[in-house]
């Protein structure tokens, strides 16, 4: 019976601890991993959303989706995830990505950075508008520190 009593005390503390930890994580803006609250799609975009997206094409002009080249979720979801990372290291990120892609498929690539705005048109339909477009660089297979690790 004593053992059951201790188990009940442990159980009560566990339940209360989960509730307290998750509520703290929900209120706090700090990264408290592994206590991650669920915040997906909570950012308000009522003024439209602006983000940087990368367009990749081969030397022969063929357009590539990043996920066609690298079958990992980071790149499959690049449009969402770049937005977070690009704010930190835009040029370094694009340069590294360029190197990684070239190493993967073995040919020269052009990387075009597009400043894109998501905004409703006059009918209310969501639109993807390219605000600016620039060629960020042409990376060649000769400058590939990552190739060996792939």
């Amino acid at each position, binding site marked *: 019976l004593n*053992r*059951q009593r201790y*188990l*009940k005390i442990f*159980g*009560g503390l*566990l*339940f209360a601890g*989960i*509730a307290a930890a*998750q*509520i703290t994580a*929900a209120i706090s803006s700090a*990264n*408290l*991993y*592994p*206590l*991650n*609250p*669920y*915040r*997906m*799609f*909570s*950012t*308000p*975009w*009522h003024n*439209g*959303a602006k983000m940087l997206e990368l367009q990749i094409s081969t030397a022969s002009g063929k357009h590539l989706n990043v996920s066609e080249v*690298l*079958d*990992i*979720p*980071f790149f499959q979801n690049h*449009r*969402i*995830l770049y937005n*977070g*990372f690009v704010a930190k*290291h835009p040029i*370094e*990120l694009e340069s*590294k990505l360029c190197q*990684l892609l070239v190493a993967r498929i073995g040919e020269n690539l052009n990387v075009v950075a597009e400043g894109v705005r*998501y905004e*409703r048109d006059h*009918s*209310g*339909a*969501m639109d*993807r508008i390219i605000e600016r477009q620039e060629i960020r660089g042409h990376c060649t297979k000769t400058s590939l520190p*990552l190739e060996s*690790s*792939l």
Partner: protein
Amino acid sequence: VKSRFANLINSFLFELRPARFFGVFPWLLYPIALFEMWRYDFRIYESIAPWLWQPSGFFRLILPHFPTISSVLAVRVVGSLAVLVAISGKWSRSAAAVAFVALLLLDYWHNMFGFIDARIHLVWMIGLMTLVKAPSPQQTAEADLLASLAFRCMELIVVLVYAQSAYAKISNAGLTWAGEGSTLQIAWLRQGLPLGHWLASSVLVAKIFSWLALGLEASFFTYYLVPRKMRGALLLTAFLFHTGTFLTMNISFAHLWVFNLAAAFYLISQSPGTKA
């Protein structure tokens, strides 16, 4: 009053007898855990780790470096074997503990790339399986007590997922989040599925679904105040919500909808006199 409160807590946490639930749920949960252990190609992650892996939170202090691929493989193999042992029913609690540690490590290594995912809830569910003995004809009082506790903790985690999601939306934008609808509309367009693309062409549809989503998530604030059949109905509605996000945005949190489905049927099927 103190005694009545203690009895209420005791009854709520420890007297559920969820044997039927745990007769089914591990068979749904463990295959998802096994899939998650092998889902990502860490060989490619190793090459992007030097510039994208940024450890943070508690684990940064004890595991600050990205692992070698052989370490990842070892954790995967040990974790997978533990899941298979746990499914077999022998040493299920010890095996669940090993699977929990393995899954937590893999989730940490993956999560520190900045991914947005809710897989940590799966990790906690596997951790809570360490409380659950495999069903047997001679179930002891202690095993019943722990199984009840495990169900209540899993239920709390799932309830908090939706409540936290509603809180995040309301604290970020208030009811405008739903009234305006553009967050969902943009998400539909960006996720790139044909159905999502089509839905994104209507502002009215985006507003309706935004209200439905926020309403469902916010209703989980009342989860513990409503009768058990209503809780079952809420969980079933959340299951439909996940079906919708999968069809329109290719987002699936299998462990959540699997729990929702199993728990909803368990709660609804309880006889009126039970304490679920």
